[in-house]
């Protein structure tokens, strides 16, 4: 018998009337969606602005998006290839930066000085960051004609001044300004002697560059503002990098993320945590909505039964409630977008200068639309399983309110699930859009898949654990039932009322606690790791060319230096020559994206333990100082295809040895250890002629005085001042810390509100119980005690389940991010007991009217 379906219009009408009948109740649903979407829009929008700022900072440390270093002037063929790469994309720009060493002199000083010469095209350089000059002027102005800019150290050493003449090669230069800061100082070579910067045009005229000159050429590349062909920024960088590596097979190509590994890692970790916050906000919102809709349908059981008795099919009912849900989802999503944009707009004015994000906050249309779409989609996805329960509503409920529980035990469990196969199927199917949303939010397929699967697995385990926990509690309760106070007994028994939802509520609450605590723990651990990486003890002034017999004197000099914040750190450097790598002669290693010159004339250090700032990522460091092993930096190892066990034949001091790669390490880019790519055991090199590198942390205001003092005592030692750069890095770390804390706090707050609404959604059931208790003569205090036991035990159990999983999840996630995990006892205990308090408080907040209800009001409605 064919049946007519309820028209969409009538379904919408019934749904709308139903909404109007209890607007307060639906406020929770709208609020849940709104909070989730607001967090999503706010977090995503802010984090996008923040990420842009941070990426700008990271790029400025390289002065470009990519750099390719070669150790010879680019040949015509290479120039043509580069031009070919650049021509492929109109928005791409490039410029060469030449670095070499040369002798420089000034008329007033008889002694020439070895300087670290850098030649740039001031019209192009730098692509990111700024060159600070004193007196203030543009680089193009300063390097016009035969002008040069010099480091303060140069003027100190030669007792020269701005305006003096400087002779380089065969050419006189006018010293136009003091070079106070060049953005890529930390990523350009250590160099020898103070910095002198001139234009490329001027360099050609000096005659310093000739075939065979020891020069380093760096090609800086700037990528277009907007990635072409729908590529993401990361894909665009990888694409350009591949093209550069193909055009310059011998060049060491680096992208801006490698410029400062510590910063890049901080940025990566911050991005991960921000993505996580986005995802958590979304999932929490969805859980809130699903819980609220479930509770709503439970209250509408009578209406559903009547409709079914009148001939409505499940599809008619689904139509009504689907429209209702989508309407609520849309309202919540719109409200959430407005709130999210509001939060973003309000933050800078509310915090003023306290907010270190300097990037302009643009209206996040993209985030807004994404929030709207995500809000609607997650509402639909998470509500469908509870909505499908309308299929199981029995019309006979109009005649009798008998709850048939079905068979118990394992059979009952399986039968229950068999009846819900569409929900089960849908829940499994839900994973796909969930992964897609997570993918979109995190811009990473891997993160999306991992998050989706981990979330599903966690939810299943949490549900099972919740059911088991309740079962154990029930067994305990049964054994002591009549020996405990009646309100406690009644409160505990409430967890097992027929048709109860304790396990799902517990699982949802537990999931919420797990997600919130995970966000907190991860951000705390990542920020701690970041602070340690960019700790205030990092050296901000480096020294090169320290002769071994100067070492003791220099250490003594720094022992008495005012403004010193940490003792002088030193590493020795010896020169070596690699003969073969993995059995292949070095000369055959062309096209490995690694300049051969860095193998033919390699700087090595010796140490019998990892150097400060280095972290072993594969293999193990030797314990025997005479081991025939070598440790290699991660980047070099990757380019030369080295791994623990690989062989390298090295010649030092006339002795050639076959060494085994013992360890691969990652340098943080900010310690002395970052200055060398190869480390050998002390026994192999300590007797070789060496020079030393040094590094100290000193008050930036004292650097000038220290430089003068050091020059007076040790005129041959080169000082490389990165204090300004370090200040910038630290300010970036501050930004990361601040924004991550701010957004995590926002997300946590949103999560708490949603959890509160989940608990509040069970109000209806308790209302009936309260009036029955009152009818039986229970006082208000007795009802308060009974329900408080129920709320707090539910909260405590959910808290316990949540904190256990949060710690496990954090441990797993942090190990993937390569960050150490520590149990945060304070946060864990706070989450545990906080959940109980929150559950009790919100339970009562949402139920306060119950105590005032007159029994007849409710019983008449029965």
């Amino acid at each position, binding site marked *: *018998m*064919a*049946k*007519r379906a*309820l*028209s969409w219009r*009538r379904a919408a009408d*019934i749904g709308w*009337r*139903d909404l*109007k*009948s209890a607007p307060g109740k639906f406020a929770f649903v709208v609020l849940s969606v709104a909070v989730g979407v607001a967090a999503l829009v706010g977090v995503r929008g802010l984090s996008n602005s923040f990420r842009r700022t941070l990426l700008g900072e990271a790029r400025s440390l390289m002065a470009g998006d990519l750099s390719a270093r070669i150790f010879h002037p680019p040949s015509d063929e290479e120039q043509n290839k580069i031009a070919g790469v650049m021509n492929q994309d109109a928005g791409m720009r490039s410029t060469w930066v030449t670095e070499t060493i040369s002798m420089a002199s000034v008329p007033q000083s008889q002694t020439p000085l070895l300087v670290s010469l850098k030649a740039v095209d001031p019209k192009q350089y730098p692509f990111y960051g700024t060159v600070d000059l004193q007196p203030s002027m543009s680089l193009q102005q300063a390097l016009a004609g035969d002008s040069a800019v010099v480091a303060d150290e140069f003027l100190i050493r030669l007792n020269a001044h701005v305006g003096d003449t400087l002779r380089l090669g065969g050419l006189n230069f006018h010293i136009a300004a003091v070079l106070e800061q060049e953005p890529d100082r930390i990523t350009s070579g250590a160099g020898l002697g103070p910095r002198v910067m001139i234009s490329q045009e001027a360099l050609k005229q000096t005659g310093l560059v000739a075939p065979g000159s020891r020069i380093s050429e760096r090609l800086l590349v700037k990528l277009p503002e907007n990635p072409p062909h729908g590529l993401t920024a990361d894909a665009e960088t990888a694409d350009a990098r591949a093209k550069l590596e193909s055009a310059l097979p011998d060049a060491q190509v680096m992208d801006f993320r490698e410029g400062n590994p510590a910063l890049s890692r901080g940025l990566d970790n911050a991005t991960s945590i921000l993505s996580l916050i986005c995802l958590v906000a979304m999932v929490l919102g969805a859980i809130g909505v699903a819980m609220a809709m479930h509770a709503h349908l439970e209250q509408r059981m*009578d*209406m559903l*039964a*009547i*409709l*079914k*008795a*009148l*001939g*409505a*099919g*499940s*599809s*008619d009912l689904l139509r009504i409630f689907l429209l209702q849900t989508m309407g609520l989802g849309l309202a919540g999503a719109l409200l959430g977008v407005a709130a999210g944009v509001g939060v973003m707009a309000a933050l800078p004015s509310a915090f003023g200068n306290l907010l270190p994000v300097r990037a302009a906050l643009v209206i996040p249309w993209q985030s807004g639309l994404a929030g709207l779409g995500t809000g609607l989609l997650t509402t639909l996805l998470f509500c469908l399983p509870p909505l499908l329960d309308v*299929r199981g509503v*029995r*019309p*006979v409920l*109009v*005649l*009798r309110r*008998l709850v*048939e*529980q*079905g*068979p*118990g*035990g394992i059979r*009952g469990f399986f039968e229950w699930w068999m009846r819900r196969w569409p929900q089960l199927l849908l829940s499994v199917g839900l994973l796909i859009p969930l992964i897609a949303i997570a993918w979109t939010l995190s811009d990473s397929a891997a993160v999306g898949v991992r998050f989706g699967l981990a979330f599903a697995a966690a939810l299943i385990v949490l549900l099972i654990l919740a059911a088991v926990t309740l079962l154990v509690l029930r067994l305990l309760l049964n054994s002591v039932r009549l020996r405990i106070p009646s309100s406690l007994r009644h409160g505990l028994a409430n967890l097992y009322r027929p048709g109860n939802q304790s396990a799902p509520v517990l699982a949802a609450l537990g999931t919420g606690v797990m997600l919130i605590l995970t966000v907190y723990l991860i951000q705390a651990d990542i920020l701690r790791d970041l602070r340690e990486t960019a700790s205030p003890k990092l050296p901000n002034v480096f020294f090169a060319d320290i002769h071994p017999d100067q070492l003791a004197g220099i250490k003594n000099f720094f022992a008495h230096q005012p403004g010193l914040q940490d003792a002088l750190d030193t590493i020795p450097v010896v020169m070596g020559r690699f003969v073969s790598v993995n059995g292949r002669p070095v000369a055959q290693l062309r096209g490995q994206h690694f300049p051969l010159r860095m193998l033919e004339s390699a700087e090595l250090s010796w140490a019998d333990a990892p150097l400060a700032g280095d972290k072993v990522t594969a293999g193990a460091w030797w314990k025997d100082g005479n081991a025939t092993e070598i440790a290699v930096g991660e980047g070099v190892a990757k380019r030369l295809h080295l791994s623990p066990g690989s062989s390298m034949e090295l010649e030092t001091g006339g002795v050639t040895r076959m060494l085994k790669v013992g360890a691969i390490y990652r340098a943080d880019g900010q310690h002395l250890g970052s200055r060398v790519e190869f480390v050998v055991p002390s026994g192999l090199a300590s007797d070789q002629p060496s020079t030393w590198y040094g590094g100290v942390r000193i008050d930036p205001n004292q650097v000038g005085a220290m430089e003068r003092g050091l020059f007076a005592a040790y005129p041959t030692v080169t000082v490389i001042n990165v204090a300004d750069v370090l200040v910038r890095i630290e300010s970036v770390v501050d930004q990361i810390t601040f924004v991550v804390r701010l957004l995590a706090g926002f997300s946590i707050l949103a999560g708490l509100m949603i959890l509160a609404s989940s608990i509040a959604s069970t109000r209806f059931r308790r209302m009936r119980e309260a009036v029955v208790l009152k009818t039986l003569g229970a006082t208000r205090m007795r009802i308060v005690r009974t329900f408080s036991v129920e709320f707090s035990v539910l909260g405590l159990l959910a808290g316990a389940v949540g904190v256990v999983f949060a710690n496990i999840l954090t441990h797993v996630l942090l190990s993937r991010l390569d960050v150490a995990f520590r149990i945060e006892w304070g946060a864990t205990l706070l989450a545990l007991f906080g959940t109980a308090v929150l559950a009790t408080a919100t339970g009562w907040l949402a139920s306060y009217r119950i105590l005032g209800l007159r029994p007849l009001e409710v019983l008449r409605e029965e």
Partner: protein
Amino acid sequence: MIEVRGAKKWIQNGARRVDILKGISLTIPAGQFVAIVGASGSGKSTLLGLLAGLDTPSEGEIGIDGVPIHNLVESQLAAVRGRKIGFVFQSYQLIQTLTALENVLLPYELNMEGNGLSKARQLLTEVGLQDRMDHYPVQLSGGEQQRVALARAFVIDPPIVMADEPTGNLDSTNGLLVLELLLKRNREAGTTLVLVTHDPEVASHADRKIVLKDGLIAEDTLPFRAAEALVPSEERHG
């Protein structure tokens, strides 16, 4: 015609099985007014639920007009309910968010083609609620709500009307009015009326009285004019 063969109903609560109906067999011819009576817990409402296709028997067969309904899938069962049966409940069971007119119209919208508005209005006028059509259930008295429920039950012209204690919540005047409307429908339209009641006075109007006790038929009588009606006409006249 409604036919029941060996219908049993039990519910399983964990390991415990509660038997509600222990084996019911009966036939209700078209147009008959049957009163089902019995003490509380005797299984009256459960039997009504089975007859109406609101629930399925644990064992046994139920057929309406020769179509077995005990093994229909949910959507087919919904269609049977929607097209063949009108319901009246003790507690009215109106949708609180719809007006009287919309409540009456609803079964039509769910089950019939075309516009049932004029029919809904006509039925509400027939039950004396022509001035209350746009009122919500909460704005109506109990008697008025039950009359709306009657109009709703009649709107699709069902061959069968099932009523569960339709006068149970009403005062005697309203109760009588509702009963008269049901009887009128039964007599004038030839609608089969199955009515569950506690009230002997209400049951006395029925063609047939089925008394349930502990899930079984204790008594099945054709006390009144129905006995005459059930005698084949050739016997009666010949």
